[in-house]
């Protein structure tokens, strides 16, 4: 474009500041929102694809059935599976085993420790399956000796700065596990399910006696995960058959009702498709379905932004006929005009692009630091990202440029010189607006409905009291420590002396957590278990104060007493378990005996009312509560019930007590109500996203509408002037003009409501405790849209209706 033409355009843009601003800003906001969403989707769908040969790597899952009914599906498998597979040659290139734990890692030399780091227990076969480079150390030698570890590059930086970490000692969970660093591996990206900080040798566990080299065929357990890398040419179904045959040969079920099946899952599918228990990294808030949702929203926003850009650009360009006429009489040919229009619209998109990049720069500096948005960090070096942003920009430019370019350039100069404002193709314009309305209604209704569902879940009676509960995580260094048990009593008793504390409880899991231990092997003494509702029983480990601390009510029988020695085989169960075991009432169950795993006989001493351990997204599970016993106790949390609102005021006092009893452990606390509501993080995020998306879409729609109503003013001023001259009042004209939009809204409603209704209903059907799409909310959404539309068009429309006819009729 010659500088001259560019100047004309630039001055035109400056003269029409509002137009330029809303056009550029609308498109920029659209581009940014679109790209963030798409980037998020691709981050999620690319999970574990970082490993070059991810197509060959599978994890073996275990499915346990009782009487042909599946009762347990887990990501773990027999500990003997990997050692056995290693000797099999059919199609297997490599096999490895992984156990996972979160640990306190203490570099005592520099007194530097971090809690909850991700630890994988494995051996050097890990590197045969997962093709990770070692920056230091030898793949053949690392992770073979007991008490050795290989650390990630990031961890090395964190702990050792510029020191050479090789040979240094890091203590895992206290005194018993001093680990020697023998290598550094390159960082695994965030979007991998085996993202970890430390690899610790399996030999460590073997030397401590809680792990074994060859494993056993007892059951899948909760710890041991098996991964295989098949040979490139291997046939997966052949391998699957071989696996089943192997299992048949080795695994002998102790209970004829129980059967086990193994399945293979490609690692790239784990993140999005897993429904298994005991995942290393439980995907929170993602599912393929939701990613579809997000992609659709992303596309809707982008289209709305484009539509807006196109509508505005076309509308505004149509007012430039005189300029075209002049250019034509001065000798401009069609091709040069077309080129001009296209370049102008590209220029406009480039402006939007620059604004979008500016927004992204600011966002990188201030917003993308949030962990939830960390997936945006690498955009500046991502080729795909830049390809996307440029193509989005150019596509918009071409869409917006082509129509005016071709319709205006073919205009005859004599017509153009009359300076008429061209009528656009009304069909196109109107369907574009209708599309925007459809999107707006859907997004508004979506926001409301998700909000409705969320409040429904938050407000529902949970069956326990979540407020004013201070939770402290158990001391890591006390795992299998000889003082573990007496320290719990010491801590509980000291904390209880604080006047604000009403109750203290130590338990394995707390409300809001999945109870990790489950077993199908429970039935009433002398009876077969009911077959139609087979299920795993959750086994929760608590103490005598747990129910009081959480105000969970006892329906019948009694609670545990402080003397745990009396409760070795006593259990308390919940209502759901009562029904499953075939009792007709809570009273009936008291003092009855049931048979558990390993044929141990238990006595039911109490029945509690059901409460929502896992939030309202999950069903109620049959649960068996046991008093913790010395030998099998793994401590999870302290729960402290406080009798005042400002629970956080108590923290310093509790921390002092903690530091005297647990000098080697970090004090980490949180509040039950926050924690419990985090289960709804997905819904919260989704709602925020929906809200933001609808807000952006509506904002862009409004911008477009405003520009358009200004354009209508130009197109219809003659018509309205004549109507007024023949007697129409201001009101008549106003209604006439508004009616046009009313029709469009009506059409949009007819299309949008059924679609959004059915989409939202199907989304809600995923919830056990759900609301329905409420007619009231539909009405409110419609009212919101109508008022926003009216407000937007009011200024221009009213101005047109009020206009003095003599100003217009000359034209």
């Amino acid at each position, binding site marked *: 474009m010659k500088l001259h033409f560019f100047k004309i355009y630039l001055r035109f843009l400056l003269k029409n500041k509002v137009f330029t601003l809303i056009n550029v800003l609308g498109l920029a906001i659209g581009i940014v929102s679109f790209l963030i969403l798409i980037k998020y989707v691709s981050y999620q769908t690319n999970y574990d694809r970082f490993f070059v040969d991810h197509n060959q790597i599978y994890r073996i899952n275990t499915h346990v059935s009782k009487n042909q009914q599946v009762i347990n599906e887990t990501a773990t498998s027999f500990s003997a599976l990997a050692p056995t597979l290693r000797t099999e040659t059919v199609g297997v290139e490599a096999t490895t085993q992984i156990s996972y734990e979160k640990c306190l890692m203490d570099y005592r030399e520099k007194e530097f420790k971090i809690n909850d780091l991700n630890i994988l227990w494995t051996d050097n076969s890990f590197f045969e399956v997962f093709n990770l480079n070692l920056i230091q150390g030898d793949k053949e030698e690392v992770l073979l000796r007991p008490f050795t570890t290989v650390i990630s590059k990031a961890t090395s930086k964190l702990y050792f700065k510029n020191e050479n970490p090789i040979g240094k000692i890091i203590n895992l969970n206290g005194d018993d596990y001093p680990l020697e660093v023998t290598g550094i591996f390159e960082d695994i990206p965030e979007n991998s399910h085996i993202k970890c900080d430390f690899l610790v040798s399996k030999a460590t566990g073997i030397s401590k006696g809680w792990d074994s080299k060859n494993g056993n065929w007892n059951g899948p357990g909760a710890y041991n995960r098996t991964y295989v890398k098949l040979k490139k040419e291997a046939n997966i179904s052949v391998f699957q058959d071989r696996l089943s045959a192997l299992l048949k040969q080795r695994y002998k079920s102790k209970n004829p009702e129980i059967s086990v099946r193994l399945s293979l899952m490609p690692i790239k599918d784990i993140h999005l498709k897993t429904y298994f228990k005991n995942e290393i990294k439980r995907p929170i808030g993602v599912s393929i379905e939701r990613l579809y949702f997000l992609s659709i929203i992303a596309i809707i926003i982008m289209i709305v932004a484009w539509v807006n850009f196109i509508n505005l650009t076309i509308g505004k360009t149509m007012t430039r006929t005189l300029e075209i006429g002049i250019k*034509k009489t*001065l*000798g401009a040919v069609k091709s040069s005009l077309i080129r001009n229009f296209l370049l102008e619209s590209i220029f406009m998109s480039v402006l939007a692009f620059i604004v979008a990049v500016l927004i992204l720069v600011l966002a990188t500096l201030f917003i993308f630091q949030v962990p939830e948005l960390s997936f945006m960090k690498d955009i500046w070096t991502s080729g795909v990202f830049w390809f996307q942003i440029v193509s989005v920009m150019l596509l918009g430019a071409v869409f917006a440029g082509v129509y005016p370019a071709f319709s205006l350039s073919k205009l005859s100069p004599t017509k153009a010189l009359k300076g008429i404002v061209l009528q656009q193709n009304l069909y196109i314009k109107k369907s574009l607006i209708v599309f925007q309305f459809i999107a707006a209604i859907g997004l508004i209704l979506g926001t409301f409905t998700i909000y409705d569902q969320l409040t429904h879940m938050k407000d529902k009676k949970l069956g326990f009291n979540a407020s004013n509960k201070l939770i402290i995580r158990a001391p890591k260094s006390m795992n299998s420590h000889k003082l573990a048990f007496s320290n719990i009593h010491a801590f509980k008793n000291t904390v209880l002396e604080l006047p604000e504390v009403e109750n203290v409880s130590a338990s394995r899991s707390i409300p809001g957590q999945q109870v990790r231990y489950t077993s199908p092997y429970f039935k009433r003494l002398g009876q077969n278990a009911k077959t139609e509702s087979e299920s795993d029983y959750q086994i929760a480990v608590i103490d005598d104060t747990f129910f009081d601390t959480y105000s969970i009510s006892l329906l019948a029988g009694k609670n545990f007493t402080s003397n745990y020695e009396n409760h070795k085989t006593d259990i308390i169960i919940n209502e759901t378990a009562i029904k499953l075991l075939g009792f007709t009432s809570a009273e009936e169950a008291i003092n009855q005996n049931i048979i558990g795993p390993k044929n141990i006989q238990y006595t039911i001493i109490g029945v509690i009312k059901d409460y929502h351990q896992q939030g309202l997204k999950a069903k109620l599970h049959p649960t068996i509560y046991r008093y913790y016993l010395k030998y099998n106790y793994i401590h999870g949390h302290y729960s402290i019930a406080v009798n005042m609102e400002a629970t956080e005021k108590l923290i310093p006092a509790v921390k002092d007590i903690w530091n005297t009893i647990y000098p080697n452990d970090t004090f980490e606390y949180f509040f039950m109500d926050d924690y419990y509501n985090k289960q709804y993080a997905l819904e919260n995020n989704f709602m925020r996203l929906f809200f933001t998306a609808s807000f952006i879409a509506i904002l862009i729609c409004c911008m477009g509408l405003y520009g358009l109503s200004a354009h209508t003013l130009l197109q219809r001023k003659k018509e309205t002037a004549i109507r007024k001259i023949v007697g129409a009042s201001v009101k008549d004209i106003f209604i006439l003009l508004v009616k046009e939009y009313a029709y469009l809204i009506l059409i949009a409603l007819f299309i949008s409501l059924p679609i959004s209704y059915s989409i939202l209903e199907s989304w809600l059907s995923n919830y056990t405790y759900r609301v329905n799409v409420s007619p009231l909310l539909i009405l409110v959404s419609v009212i919101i849209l109508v008022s926003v539309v009216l407000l937007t068009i009011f200024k221009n429309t009213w101005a047109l209706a009020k206009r003095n006819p003599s100003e217009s009729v000359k034209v």
Partner: protein
Amino acid sequence: MLLQLNNIFKWVNSGGQRIFLLKDINLSVQEGEFISIMGPSGSGKSTLLNVIGMLDNFDEGEYHFLNESVHTLKEKHRANLYKEYIGFVFQSYHLLDELTVKENLEMPLLYKKYKSSERKAMVADMLDRFNIVGKKDLFPAQLSGGQQQLVGVARALIAIPKLILADEPTGNLNSKQSEEIMELFKKLNKEGVTIIQVTHSEKNAAYGSRIINLLDGRKTS
């Protein structure tokens, strides 16, 4: 001979009837002539001017401009022809609001293959000749009507056309400004530029060497 129109017809169809805008127009124009087209509203003056300027098509007849047969040319060639030889002056000036006087003058040159230095020289020359050097950086909105039309005429002349077509060039001006523009036309004509103007005013018509009267699309004299 600069141009010749033979039996030109132009019509529109309206309600099954053919309405003639131009009917059997024959006209030949020699180089150096100054012609005024007159007639009442709707008689086809502007249409004739647009046909001569090749801005508008006609339905029947032949049009020869220099040695080209315009009626056989495609749009692109016609555009090349008129941008080479014809300059236009309009009643409402039709300057581009977004450009300064200087930039407006430069516009026609951009559609031809002039080098930047040549363009600058030609614009400077024209500003000088019309005595508007002091106004070169002003925008049209900052000028009076007479001054705008002066720029309009300068723009029409800058590419050194053989023919100037002016559609009511003084229609929006007061009598003094009108007189100045007409004097300018007279001077240009003496310098050898052929001019065809559409006008309502007998006085303006008198500046020309020949008057063509139109009535209902027909030439009456």
